[in-house]
Structure formats: structure tokens, C-alpha cells
């Protein structure tokens, strides 16, 4: 698929989710202007993106959504639940379209009808008559009146003649007067460039729009020029060309009569000298009777420029400005020389300029002007290139000399900004830089690091073999040394990759606002959802496998936990129930709590039901306390729906939740107080890719026990074992710990072996909140390994949570402590 399309889909999904969330937030804060702006922006951007492709269905629906939100934003219509519903539906529809595009790269034709319906439903909420905003001011198209008649008479005769020829050839000419606003440079405008780029330009000139101030008062950042242009381009082309400066431009169709030469409007040479010709095509392209005159005009203009430079250099009113004047004159002269293609003159001027600047005297430049200008004037008058330099206050284009004045000037004038240009290039790499990486790539990295961790474990065996089998101690030591290096790197790498895989729980939490809203509405309940610490992170797999159990629990809470407003009122509770979902990281585990303030679970009912279903026997029924009774709802075969609520249907067995959580080495605990509410607490490992396992030996076999379960290892002298009733126990750290033999639990007949000091190895493990001592024959090392679930025929063995490959190639069985205890 086209990468742009892939990006579009991924972004559209993110945006749609965001939009959904924001719409829900709006329900609680319908007048939050920030939120509505944000919503508008998202829909707006999404629509803009869809316009990059041809997905008219999507664009149409989003456009309607954008218009609707625009009206809400401007206060023209009020936000309502109805409006939210329709927008949510529209966003769902957009998501469906995205799914379509993802699978087939196009939108099925059948969707057009849905799109129309969706658009209709959105537009239906808008006020009936919506006037389009008035179009932006058109370019002043009024016909020229007598007073406004362009001053074409000012044009030199030869030019007029040439233009007239164009008219007679049937071309419609336009006269343009372009008067840039004074501060146009601060909008990034380049009037000179813009004027010169005018399509179909036949002639152009510039002149000061107001009397030029004295040099001392001249503000180089203020544009005091206006341009007059004659072009053969059509009105449409011109409107298009000047569309950013419409209010500064007047375009008038040229009436050929204005161009006709009469005695009275013969060109006044003085006027021409004051005007800088910026385009002079006719005189060049068509030698005619006017050619001689054109040459004279040109020479006069060039002479005027040189005269002005001389005058500028001679000015003596303010010594501080001398350096600036020298620089300005130097720049003009260098540009003139370059324009004439006279590199020798250019370098002469440059040298004179440098000299003048270092001495602070203008004599050298003056001298050059007096002695060498004639040559330059001659070559300029004959040169075919139009003048590219304008001595007046126009921003110079691409000229090397001008920037010192325009670029450095402001920087120096505002030293207080403290911005160091160019010195903080390293800063450009600062700031958050997120990469979106394909999940498959990360998974591959994860698998590779998993393999690396396992294969590095082969090195210690190799070292051992080198020593015991081949008797090379030296080599053995070296292998061990290398191993520790590889081990460290692998550990760090694993850690780094795990970090990449970390996701915030918000990715699942964000589904809840919509879910809770929809379900609670269906059930007629008022529920306020509180999400806390959504930024808590955990491994991607953990987060993903958490989604379903969480949804089950939330559904249950809404369905069976929280009461209807009437019942809540009768019980003296606020009508709106609160459902809190909270995440937190505790040591190396993520804890998620789902708390409702509903009616809670009645332990008596559970007990009774469990007994009826044969899940517990009579003695247990008598014995178990309320807490244990409530936890019975996790037992398989106890239909929560029937027990906790009369509401039919939807109840999902909590046993499903528990097995899903335990599959990822998590635990789930429930606390409930009748009438007050229920708290379900799920605790999960931060990551499940690599399991730290302690290896123990029993009856000559090795078993792995997840470090999550291990509390400590102790050796207990045989004589300190106590027998309480039928079972063994020992006093450890001041408390009685029941002891069980691992062999017995696994159905192995051997008895635990004691060491030479007649001590037994006891592994204290934690299972379901209880501590228990496992009697084993001996402890081995702890290793990190990739646990593989048992599959096929072996998957029925609940005593084992999985198997793993050891470094020496043997298979280690990992015990499922919870099951065997």
C-alpha cells in the first residue's frame, strides 16, 4: 500500500479515537470552549487529510461534521446529546470506511448511500438557512473614470508605440497600479519580485509613492514604492497573480486611445529619469524608430543612478552615517558592474569599497566614480540585460550585499532576546521525537533478544565442559569472562527493547468512556466514569491481554453492580453512580482497580449458589468467611448473572476473567461490601516476555519456579520440623510456615533429601496471598528464560505453566505454583 495511505489510515484512526473521547468529555463540560476548539480542529484536520485522496464519502461526512462543530463553536447551535450521538455515529462510520480502505484500498460504492444518510443526519441539526460567508473582497474592477485614467501619457514614446502595436494586433492590455502597503516587507511580500513576475509583462516601472525623505530619515524597511505595469495577461490571470494583495492593486483595461501619441502628452524626460524601468521588453525585442530614443532613456537613467551615487558619497551632514553610505553605494556599483557583466570593474569597486570602509573615507570610491564610470555606463547602455537593481528602498533579491543591512540589522537591534543563532544547532535534535514503528518489527526484535538470552545461557555449560571434559582451565575461564560481557549486554538490550514495548494503559482505558456511556444509557443508569493514572505503562502484550477481562469487569459492574437512579435515591446514595478505573505501578507489577459504588455482592447468596451448584461442600459452606465466599465468584460454573442480579443476559462468568488474567501471570482479587460497592483488583507483571525462574532439584529432576512466587530460600535443620495435625510446619522468622514436599505434590514417591548437615532445603513461595514452604532437594541458579506455553497433548497439565529451553539444550518444566498448592 502507498505509504501515504498507510499513514493516513493510522492517523485517521488516532484522530477518530480522539474525537470520540472528546465528544464524551463534552457531555460533562458542554461549554468548554477549549474542548470544542480541539474537537473542531481534529475533525477539520481529518477532513483536510481525506481531501488528499479521493474518498468523497469520507470527506463529505467529515465536512458536515466540521460545519456542525463550527456552529457549536460559534455558539450558533447548542451542544446536545443528540448531536453527540450523531457525531459519534459519523465517526464510527469514518472508522468503518478506514477499515474498508485498509482491506481493499478503496471505499465500496455501496457506502455512498450511508454517507449521504450520515451527512443528512448531521446537516439536519443545522439551522435551515445558512448563508455562505461573503466572498472575499474582489479586486477593484470598477471601470476607469476620467480622473482615474492611468497615466499612460507618462510612458516614453517608444514604449507607447510598442504597446500600441500590441493593441492593434488584437491583444487586450491591462494597466496595473500596484501600491504595496508600507510595511509589506513584514508580511514576507517582495513587491519588486511580484511585479516582475507579472504574467505577460510588457512594460513596468516603479516610482516613489510619496516624497522620499532625506537619507537620514529613510526607513529601509518601509516600502514607499508603487509599480505601474502594462501586461497582455488576462484579467483572470492577473487576479490570480495578485490574489494575496488584492487591496493594493488596481487593474484597468487599457484603452488603445490612451496610448496614441499626441504633441501634448509627449514624454517628459525628467519624469523618466525619476522612474526605474523594471521591464522593457519592447525596446529590445523590436528595433524600431523608437530604438534610439530607448537608448537615450536608458543612458539618462544610468547617468542619473551614477549621479545619485556621487551625491550620496558627497553628503556630509552626519559623519556616523558615512560607513553606511559607503556600503550602500558600493553595493549599487557592484551590482551595476555585475549587471553589465564587467567582473573587472566589480572587483575594482569591491577593493575600493573595502579600502574605504577600513579608512572611513570615501575618497577611493569617489575617485573610481570619476575616473571609471564612463566605461561602465557605456557597457550598461549597450547591455541587453534589464537592470536588476533598484536604488530605492526595495528589498534586493538574491543580492549578496543587501543582507548585511536587512538581516543583521534587526538581530543586532534586539540583543535582549538572547537568541543565539546558529550556536544551538544541537537543540534541533531536542524535544520529543516519536517514531511510529510497525508492531511486527518490535515483535521480531523481541523474539531475537529472546533467542539471544537463551543461547547465551549455553556459554557457562561450554565453559564447564572445557574444564571438566577437555581439562583446559584457561579456556574455561576465558569463556566465562566473555560470557559475563555478553550477559551484561544482552540484559541491557533486553531491557531497552522492553522499554520500547511499553505502552500506557490509556490505550485500553480510552475505550471505556464510550462503552460506559452506551451501556449505561441502554440500562437507564446514570454513571460517572473516572479514569485515573492512564499514563501507567506496561508491556504491550500485557496491556493487550488485559483489554478483554477489563471490558468484562466493567460490563458486570454496570450491569449488576451499579443500581438504577431510583434505587440509588431510595437507598440514600447520589443518583449518579461512580465507576473508577485506576491504574498504578507497584514495584514490578501493574495494578488495575475497578471500583464501583454499587450494591456490592452478598456473600450469603454466593455461598448458597455455590453450594447448590456443588462447587463447595457443606463443611466448606459452614467454614468459609465472607471474603472467601465473595472470591467464589471466580469459580468456574458459577453464573454471576443468576446470582448477583436479576437482570438477564449479559453477565460474563468471572472465571473467564480470572483465567485470562492468570494466563499472563496476573492475579485478581475482589473486595465487596454489601450496599457500598465492589472493588476488583487486578495485578499483572510489567512484562511477560522473559520470566526469571529459580531452578530447584527434586528427586534428580530440575524444575523451574517463577521468581514472582519465590519469597526466600532457607535451610531448615530436620530437628526443627514440627508436625501440626497431619502436616509439617516450621517456625521461620517468628511465624509458623506450613511445609510441603514438592515430590508429594507432583506425585513422586521419593522423600526430600537432606544435606550433610542434616538440613532440608526449603523454598518459601507465595501463592494466593499465603506463604508456603516447599521441601526440595537443592537449589540451583536463577535464570531468565522465555517461557513457552505447553501445547497439544501436554496443555492439559495444569501443574506446569510452561516449558523453556535451557542453555545446554535440555527442557525445563516451569511449575504453576498456584495450581499445585
Amino acid at each position, binding site marked *: 500500500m502507498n505509504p*501515504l495511505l498507510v*499513514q*493516513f489510515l493510522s492517523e485517521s484512526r488516532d484522530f477518530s479515537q480522539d474525537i470520540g473521547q472528546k465528544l464524551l468529555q463534552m457531555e460533562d463540560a458542554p461549554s468548554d470552549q477549549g474542548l470544542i476548539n480541539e474537537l473542531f480542529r481534529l475533525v477539520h484536520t481529518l477532513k483536510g*487529510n481525506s481531501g488528499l485522496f479521493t474518498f468523497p464519502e469520507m470527506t463529505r461526512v467529515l465536512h458536515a461534521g466540521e460545519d456542525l462543530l463550527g456552529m457549536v463553536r460559534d455558539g450558533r447551535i447548542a451542544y446536545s446529546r443528540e448531536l453527540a450521538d450523531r457525531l459519534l455515529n459519523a465517526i464510527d462510520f469514518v472508522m468503518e470506511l478506514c477499515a474498508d480502505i485498509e482491506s481493499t484500498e478503496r471505499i465500496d460504492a455501496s457506502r455512498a448511500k450511508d454517507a449521504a444518510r450520515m451527512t443528512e443526519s448531521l446537516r439536519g441539526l443545522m439551522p435551515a438557512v445558512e448563508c455562505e460567508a461573503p466572498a472575499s473582497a474582489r479586486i477593484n474592477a470598477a471601470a476607469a473614470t476620467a480622473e482615474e485614467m492611468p497615466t499612460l501619457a507618462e510612458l516614453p514614446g517608444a514604449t507607447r508605440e510598442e504597446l500600441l502595436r500590441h493593441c492593434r494586433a488584437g491583444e487586450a492590455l491591462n494597466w496595473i497600479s500596484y501600491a504595496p502597503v508600507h510595511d509589506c516587507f*513584514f*508580511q*514576507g511580500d517582495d513587491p519588486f519580485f511580484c511585479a516582475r513576475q507579472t504574467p505577460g509583462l510588457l512594460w513596468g516601472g516603479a516610482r516613489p509613492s510619496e516624497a522620499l525623505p532625506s537619507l537620514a530619515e529613510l526607513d529601509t524597511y518601509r516600502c514607499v514604492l508603487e509599480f505601474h505595469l502594462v501586461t497582455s495577461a488576462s484579467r483572470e490571470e492577473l487576479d490570480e497573480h495578485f490574489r494575496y494583495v488584492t487591496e493594493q492593486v488596481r487593474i484597468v483595461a487599457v484603452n488603445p486611445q490612451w496610448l496614441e501619441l499626441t504633441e501634448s502628452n509627449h514624454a517628459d524626460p525628467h519624469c523618466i529619469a525619476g522612474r526605474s524601468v523594471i521591464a522593457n521588453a519592447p525596446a529590445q525585442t523590436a528595433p524600431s524608430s523608437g530604438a534610439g530614443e530607448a537608448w537615450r532613456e536608458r543612458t539618462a537613467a544610468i547617468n542619473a543612478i551614477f549621479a545619485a551615487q556621487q551625491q550620496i558619497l558627497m553628503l556630509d551632514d552626519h559623519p556616523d552615517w558615512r560607513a553606511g553610505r559607503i556600503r550602500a553605494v558600493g553595493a549599487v556599483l557592484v551590482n551595476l558592474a555585475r549587471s553589465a557583466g564587467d567582473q573587472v570593474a566589480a572587483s575594482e569597486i569591491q577593493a575600493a569599497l573595502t579600502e574605504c570602509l577600513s579608512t572611513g573615507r570615501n575618497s577611493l570610491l569617489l575617485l573610481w566614480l570619476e575616473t571609471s564610470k564612463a566605461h561602465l555606463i557605456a557597457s550598461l547602455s549597450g547591455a541587453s540585460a534589464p537592470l536588476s537593481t533598484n536604488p530605492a528602498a526595495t528589498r534586493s533579491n538574491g543580492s549578496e550585499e543587501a543582507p548585511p543591512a536587512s538581516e543583521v540589522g*534587526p538581530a543586532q537591534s534586539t540583543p535582549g532576546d538572547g537568541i543565539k*543563532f546558529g*550556536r544551538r544547532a544541537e537543540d534541533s535534535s531536542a524535544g520529543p521525537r516519536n517514531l511510529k514503528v510497525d508492531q511486527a518489527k518490535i515483535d521480531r526484535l523481541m523474539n531475537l533478544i529472546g533467542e539471544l538470552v537463551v543461547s547465551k545461557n549455553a556459554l557457562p555449560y561450554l565453559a564447564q565442559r572445557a574444564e571438566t571434559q577437555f581439562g583446559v582451565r584457561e579456556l574455561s575461564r576465558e569463556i566465562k569472562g566473555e560470557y559475563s560481557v555478553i550477559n551484561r549486554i544482552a540484559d541491557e538490550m533486553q531491557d531497552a527493547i522492553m522499554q520500547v514495548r511499553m505502552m500506557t494503559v490509556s490505550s485500553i482505558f480510552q475505550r471505556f468512556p464510550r462503552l460506559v456511556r452506551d451501556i449505561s444509557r441502554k440500562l437507564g443508569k446514570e454513571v460517572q466514569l473516572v479514569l485515573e493514572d492512564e499514563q501507567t505503562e506496561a508491556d504491550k502484550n500485557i496491556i493487550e491481554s488485559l483489554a478483554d477481562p477489563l471490558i468484562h469487569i466493567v460490563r458486570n459492574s454496570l450491569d449488576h453492580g451499579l443500581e438504577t437512579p431510583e434505587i440509588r435515591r431510595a437507598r440514600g446514595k447520589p443518583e449518579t453512580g461512580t465507576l473508577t478505573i485506576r491504574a498504578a505501578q507497584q514495584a514490578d507489577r501493574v495494578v488495575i482497580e475497578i471500583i464501583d459504588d454499587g450494591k456490592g455482592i452478598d456473600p450469603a447468596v454466593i455461598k448458597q449458589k455455590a453450594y447448590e451448584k456443588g462447587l463447595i461442600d457443606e463443611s466448606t459452606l459452614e467454614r468459609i468467611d465472607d471474603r472467601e465466599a465473595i472470591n467464589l465468584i471466580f469459580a468456574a460454573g458459577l453464573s454471576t448473572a443468576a446470582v448477583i442480579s436479576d437482570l438477564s443476559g449479559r453477565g460474563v462468568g468471572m472465571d473467564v476473567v480470572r483465567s485470562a488474567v492468570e494466563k499472563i501471570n496476573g492475579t485478581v482479587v475482589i473486595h465487596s461490601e454489601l450496599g457500598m460497592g465492589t472493588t476488583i483488583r487486578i495485578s499483572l507483571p510489567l512484562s511477560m516476555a522473559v520470566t526469571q525462574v529459580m531452578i530447584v532439584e527434586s528427586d534428580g529432576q530440575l524444575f523451574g519456579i517463577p521468581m514472582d512466587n519465590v519469597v526466600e530460600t532457607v535451610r531448615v535443620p530436620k530437628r526443627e520440623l514440627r508436625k501440626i495435625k497431619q502436616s509439617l510446619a516450621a517456625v521461620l522468622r517468628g511465624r509458623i510456615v506450613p511445609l510441603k514436599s514438592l515430590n508429594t505434590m507432583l506425585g513422586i514417591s521419593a522423600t526430600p533429601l537432606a544435606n550433610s548437615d542434616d538440613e532440608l532445603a526449603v523454598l518459601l513461595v507465595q501463592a494466593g496471598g499465603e506463604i508456603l514452604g516447599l521441601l526440595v532437594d537443592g537449589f540451583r541458579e536463577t535464570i531468565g528464560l522465555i517461557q513457552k506455553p505447553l501445547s497439544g497433548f501436554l496443555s492439559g497439565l495444569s501443574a506446569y505453566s510452561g516449558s523453556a529451553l535451557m542453555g545446554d539444550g535440555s527442557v525445563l518444566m516451569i511449575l504453576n505454583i498456584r495450581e499445585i498448592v
Partner: protein
Amino acid sequence: MAKTILVVDDSVTMVMSLKSSLSLAGFQVETANNGQQAIDKLKAGVKPDLILTDINMPVMGGLEMIGKVRALPGCRFFPILTLTTESETAKRDEGRNLGATGWLVKPVSGSDLLKVIKQILPGA
């Protein structure tokens, strides 16, 4: 030397699309996802010959950015184009008043984009 264009848009899709058109035409393209990022880039020494910016962005929108960019030393004169939609005529004028040079109407086709840039960027 290739002209540098700074593209500012919160939509990665839009940035990607503009960037590919501009790079193909031989421009050096810098990108930012909101006004603040753009300002940071400018402060860090990125010197664009032109800025193309969206209006509606989180953290800092385009209009606010234009004002701030123009207040930076060395950033007063290069052209800035806003990316607007059909309906945002008011924003275009507001942008102009704040120092933008012009606007483009989304969705912008590659050829339109280059035409306008050629028109306002000397030497492009």
C-alpha cells in the same frame, strides 16, 4: 543551493504529502508538528526560505506562530504561506495582517503548490 521550506502541520499525513511534493521539486524540507516546534526549530538555527503552515494546530496554532516568527530576529522577511480550507477566508486575512504572505487552499495539489511557491519565492 536548494531552498529550505519549513512545513508546519499537526497532521503527519499532510506533512508527509507536502514533504514528498516539495522534496521531489528539489527543496530542502524541514517539518514541525505545531507552531511551538516550528519556533523551536527557528531558534535552533533552521533558516527557512519559506514557511508553509496549517492554521489549526494544538499547542500553538498557525496564526499565533506567525506573529511569533515575525518577532524573531532574522525571520521578518521570508514569505509565510498559510494552509487554509475553502471556508476559512477570515483566517487568510487575519494571517495576512499578522505577517503571512499568502495562503493555499487545502487540499493542495503538487503543481499548485509549486506554482505558488515559484511565484512568491525569488530564485525558486
